[in-house]
């Protein structure tokens, strides 16, 4: 069953690639394929049960193809050494802001939902 899900994901990726290339875009076809696949699933043109196993396999190993890119920061670090402070501070601000805003707003909304008659 897993192979079906993997083949379907590869098929939608290739479809996305074909679309972005025909449009002359430099953007990868993965996201276009993702959007098309999501719409197809929501429209129930493909049953979720058929693709759940294969998708689960790919999502579980999401980190696999980015090990090399992440390790490649060894070279990127040299290029961006002069901007290290800007990168670290901006990342901390953005991450903690996002965590706090979403947590507090969702907490407020869920409390309102509970107390509303």
């Amino acid at each position, binding site marked *: 069953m897993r192979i079906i899900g993997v083949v379907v994901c590869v098929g939608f990726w290739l479809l*996305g690639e074909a679309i972005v290339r025909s449009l002359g875009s430099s953007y990868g076809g993965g996201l276009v394929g993702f959007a098309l696949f999501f719409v197809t699933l929501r429209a129930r043109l493909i049953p979720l049960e058929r*693709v759940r196993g*294969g998708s689960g396999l790919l999502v579980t190993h999401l980190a696999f193809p*980015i090990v090399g890119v992440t390790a490649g*920061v060894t070279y990127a670090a040299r290029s961006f050494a002069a901007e290290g*402070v800007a990168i670290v501070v*901006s990342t901390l601000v953005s991450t903690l802001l996002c965590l706090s805003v979403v*947590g507090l707003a969702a907490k407020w909304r869920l409390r309102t939902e509970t107390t509303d008659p």
Partner: protein
Amino acid sequence: MSALLFFLGCAGAYAGAYVTRARHRLPVLMLAAAVVGVVLVLLGPGVEAAFRQGIAPYSYLLGPMTVALAVPLAEASEDGARKARVGFTTALLLVSAGLSAASIVLVARWLGASATACASLAPRAATSALSVPTSEALAGSASLTSVIVATSGVLVGLVGPGLLSLLGVKDPRARGLALGASGHLVATARAWEESREAGTASTFALIVHGVLTVGVSFLLHALRFF
């Protein structure tokens, strides 16, 4: 040094970190990348061209993996439609994606970062499968984006639950949304450890927030923020 060795070395590092994950309990990506990174430092800058050539084939795997995220999103959106107010949640995640991308770009620019660094930082709040291609499309550095995304995920995974408790956020759905939106896969794994409810909310946030962050990053680029 042959490109093939780097290709196999990355696969081996991942396999080793994945198989032993129950023992070391570290994020698999961080451990595998750290091992490869140490090897690269030891080998020096002379092997960069062979390394780049060796890891290039992996980019073809990112496409199908990005597509695969549509399945948990479709499942989560079906659950969410019944259990929560999806409209509010999506609006909240849109605000959060805007805040994340705008704050990181503005602070980085204020501190003197280049346009390339800003393009690499803008999609930080999206999971790697979404942020890396976005960074490349915006002429950023895929390596820098990947490490920033992984680092912020580890940061949220480590301090996020404690910070949310300090802020009085106890509802598992609220905790899951916050963890998934800010800390990607690492924090989502942490949310699943807390409860199924937190894990489901985190998965929903991980994907919706990621997609919205991609849109916001392009918008900021079009508005010449960087």
